[in-house]
């Protein structure tokens, strides 16, 4: 294990003085972008303004559809064909970027302003070697040829932290992992030594530990090459990590902009309040998260007044009538909200915002009276998994996805399974609902074995008892069926109703229970937003009246403002119906808020299993420690001084001393050999 980063502190006041003393490097004024879509006009950017100062990192935060990507695409002239800038100007280097011809763009795009795109899987050419692809950029923009270009390429690969660059130079994209590809894409963008680098969610598709490394890399490159960075993201933890200044976008407008500390600790737009207070990191276990109702507006409609008004619990009458102007809070902090008007009533910032500054990221408010099912002396196991193994393929292609996994889930608890992509967490979840067959081991539901051959009555019982909620709300609903059919599919399969009327009543009840209007049952899924679709998926599972629900990353594909709604709903249902959850996630911060116990899985093996707070306070396994150290924290000061631990599996020497699954403390299990266990015990002071 090594410390990957030095401690660094940020002096936001010094940066603010620096910003105030400069002329902006790039200045966008009243930019309006219109798309024509199916014969309709869609105004994606509604007169947004933004100044960018040299050497800073500006983060743009917003939900999907807020226009953050479209806005920055204007800076590199990469709008989609059906979109155009219909108003405003973007001044850069004495030019107005909105008026450049395609030919003029060639001298700006890539050379002066470059972009790193979101998906590292599709932004590289699979038919060319990595070296060639970087070299292309080096030759084009630095004018180097032949051996010199190759040497520079290899230097670039080294600079973005790719080990053994000589060998890697000759490899193809499929031989690189997601994080490595993102480094390569970054290398291509940086190879032209741009003045401004736009990073469009470069880490969204990556695991937290890899994400932290990429953020480090971008920060380092910025320092070395003195770049100005625009960082687009929806993740406030990432914002806290990278940003000097933060711009919050909603419905195609910049609604709040300021230094990172100002936006995080002294925000004034109700939307920013809502976003920050809905963070699970700030939630108190057992209490509801302050969620934002509803969904962002449909930009096809004409928006009157403040776009956030219908969802805003602090909305004034004027918010529905007139668009607010920008109000200055400090010299560097501006807010587009009527609440800052001198005529407006005085409002206090919500309590959660104040928590943010005082939160130290270690200890955490837990409702002391909260009931923890696994601590109940009469606890009853609902699901027991013994020595479970799942393999895919056969013969030479055999792949062990889950290996020798043991755990027990007690009635009424939320059991979290946390791991990175490819760790086998989804496979375990699917094995429990019997989508993936188990190769070895046993699964018990209320003491009865449910894997292998079972009776028909038992099979029906398992189907009704165990249901699943899926990750991607876009893919998990059948687009060509009405909500009515989707929700009642389980009922129809097993004839769980006596009359058509009873079926419809059940559907209405299920929809109501997840907070949807009963009239939605006659619509098709495409009419709904991600959060609504996810709730339809929950209703589909609930109608079977299950005891146990596997929730496979139910919020990771949702927008920040929607996540809290779904988390609250899951918690409500748990209390009302006495449900038991297995909550699969890659994000530890969410898991801490929602779960009673957490299991950490690495490469198909559970390496540590403990009570949630216990795991956060005393992580023992080096992998757990590495995961915890990488969790983004929505506090710029903490986030920037956190120490990142890197897990290296080769530290385990299991050649002679065989590892075991040991209960080191009551309810705290760990995977390790005797020598390691002794070390862990010493650490716990046993």
């Amino acid at each position, binding site marked *: 294990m090594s410390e990957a980063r030095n401690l660094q502190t940020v002096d936001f006041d010094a940066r603010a003085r620096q910003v105030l003393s400069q002329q902006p490097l790039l200045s966008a004024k009243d930019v309006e972008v219109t798309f024509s879509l199916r014969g309709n006009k869609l105004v994606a950017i509604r007169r947004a303004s933004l100044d960018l100062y040299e050497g800073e990192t500006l983060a743009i935060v917003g939900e999907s*559809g807020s226009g953050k990507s479209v806005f920055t695409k204007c800076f590199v002239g990469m709008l989609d064909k059906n979109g155009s800038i219909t108003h405003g100007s973007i001044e850069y280097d004495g030019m107005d970027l909105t008026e450049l011809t395609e030919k003029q763009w060639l001298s700006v795009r890539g050379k002066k302003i470059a972009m790193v795109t979101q998906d590292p899987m599709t932004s590289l050419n699979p038919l060319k070697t990595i070296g060639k692809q970087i070299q292309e950029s080096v030759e084009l923009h630095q004018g180097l040829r032949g051996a010199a270009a190759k040497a520079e390429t290899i230097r670039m690969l080294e600079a973005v932290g790719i080990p053994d660059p000589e060998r890697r130079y000759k490899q193809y994209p499929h031989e690189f992992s997601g994080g490595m590809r993102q480094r390569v894409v970054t290398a291509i963008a940086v190879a032209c030594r741009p003045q401004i680098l736009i990073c469009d969610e470069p880490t969204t598709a990556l695991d937290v530990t890899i994400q932290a490394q990429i953020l480090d890399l971008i920060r380092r490159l910025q320092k070395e090459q003195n770049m100005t960075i625009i960082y687009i993201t929806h993740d406030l933890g990432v914002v806290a990590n990278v940003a000097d200044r933060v711009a919050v976008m909603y419905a195609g407008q910049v609604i709040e902009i300021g230094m990172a500390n100002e936006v995080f600790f002294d925000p004034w737009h109700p939307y920013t309040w809502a976003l920050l207070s809905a963070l699970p990191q700030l939630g108190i276990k057992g209490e509801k998260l302050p969620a934002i109702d509803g969904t962002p507006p449909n930009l*096809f409609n004409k928006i009157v007044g403040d776009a956030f008004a219908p969802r805003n619990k602090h909305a004034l009458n004027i918010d529905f009538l007139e668009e607010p102007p920008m109000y200055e809070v400090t010299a560097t902090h501006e807010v587009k909200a009527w609440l800052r008007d001198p005529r407006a*009533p005085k409002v206090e910032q919500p309590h959660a915002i104040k928590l943010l500054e005082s939160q130290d990221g270690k200890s955490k408010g837990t409702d002391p009276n909260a009931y923890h099912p696994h601590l109940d002396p009469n606890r009853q196991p609902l699901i027991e998994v013994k020595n479970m193994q799942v393999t895919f393929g056969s013969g030479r292609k055999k792949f062990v996805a889950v290996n020798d996994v043991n755990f027990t889930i007690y009635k009424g608890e939320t059991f979290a399974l946390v791991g990175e992509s490819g760790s086998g967490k989804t496979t375990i979840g699917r094995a429990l609902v019997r*989508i993936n067959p188990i190769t070895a081991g046993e699964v018990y539901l209320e003491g009865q074995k449910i894997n292998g051959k079972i009776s028909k009555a038992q099979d029906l019982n398992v189907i009704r008892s165990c249901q699943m909620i899926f990750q991607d709300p876009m893919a998990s609903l059948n687009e060509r069926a009405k909500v009515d059919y989707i929700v009642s599919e389980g009922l129809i399969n097993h004839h769980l109703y006596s009359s058509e009327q009873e079926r419809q009543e059940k559907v209405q009840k299920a929809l*109501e229970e997840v907070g949807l209007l009963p009239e939605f049952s006659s619509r098709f899924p*495409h*009419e709904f937003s991600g959060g609504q679709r996810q709730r339809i998926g929950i209703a589909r599972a609930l109608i079977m009246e299950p005891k146990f629900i596997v929730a496979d990353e139910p919020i990771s594909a949702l927008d920040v403002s929607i996540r809290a709604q779904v988390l609250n709903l899951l918690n409500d249902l748990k209390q009302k119906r006495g449900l038991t959850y297995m909550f699969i996630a890659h994000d530890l911060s969410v898991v801490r808020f929602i779960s009673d116990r957490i299991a950490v899985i690495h490469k198909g093996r559970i390496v540590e299993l403990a009570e949630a707070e216990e795991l956060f306070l005393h992580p023992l396994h080096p992998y757990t420690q590495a995961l915890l150290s990488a969790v983004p924290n929505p506090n710029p000061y903490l986030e920037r001084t956190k120490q990142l631990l890197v897990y290296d599996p080769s530290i385990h020497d299991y050649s002679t001393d065989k590892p075991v699954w040991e209960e080191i403390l009551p309810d705290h299990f760990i995977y390790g050999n005797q020598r390691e266990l002794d070390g862990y015990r010493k650490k716990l002071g046993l």
Partner: protein
Amino acid sequence: MAAKKERKKTVQELEAPVVNLNVKYNTVDTEPKKERPYGREYPKSRNKMPEKQLFEFAEYHPQDAERTGYSNYSYWKSVWANFLKKKPAVIMSCVFIALFIFTFVASAIGKYDIYMATDPINRAYIAPNSEYWFGTNAIGQDYWAQVWYATRASILLAVLVSLGQIVVGVIIGLVWGYVRSLDRFFTELYNLIDNIPTIIYMTLIALMIGKNMVTMGIAMVGFGWLGTARNVRNLVFMYRDREYNLASRCLGTKLGRILFRNIFPYLVSVIILRMALAIPGTIAYETTLTYLGLMDITKPSLGMLLSTARSVFPRASYTLIFPAIIVSIITITFYLVGNAFSDACDPRNHV
């Protein structure tokens, strides 16, 4: 019995008043929705509201928030609208429909029918005139009756055969694509049938069973499903592992229902396209078979008319021209309709 009791109990639990802590939908207004910016009544301009009131807190309605954003895009409506934009395809479809209806009218208004007595000596190859509108054929029968009867028979054969091919092909293709354990079996079956030219099979069937329309039609279906099945199988792969199918499996949905509710609707556009292209294909195939002498030639079909007219072409060119025009209309119609439809079905063209 015990299970039933338990179920009843849980239903009662369900019926207990739902305390929705998040949003209270019990108060949803049932009055018809008017066109209003955010579902709330406000004066058009701020001047109508006193300034003091402007800066008061507005009432918060959670159902307004829920209503803010959904699109009213409908896939099939867009497909239809896009298809209607392709004028040539629309015009040709109208022409084709008119042509098919006319085959019935033509037989009724014609002076003779196809069963007219033959008289090869006096009436062979009379050029079109007021008595014989399309002239006569080699054995002195009225060509008008022949052509329209053949058109109707060929269109019916083509539609039925294409439909048969598609139905069989889609069913087999769905099972082939979705059920992993049957993939090997169907692949081998496909290879077995596909590797021998169908003409050989057709010849054998014609010689051993008979050459009538029904037999040959069934034989055409029997080999024509292969292409469709393969196409469908490859498409099923795209949808097979989507999460909504996993959800269905989780709910214990039966295979047939998964195939026809979850996967089939996504393939409808491709299936219609294949069907449109199969119709002229079948007519062409029928012509080939007639030319090879594998079809029944006692009743006229377009294939038969074309293959007999070919031998007398320069002399009695009208016997070729009339059926050729009709075949061209059918082929062009389905070619245009197929293309227009496949363009219209592509969601990328719905922008």
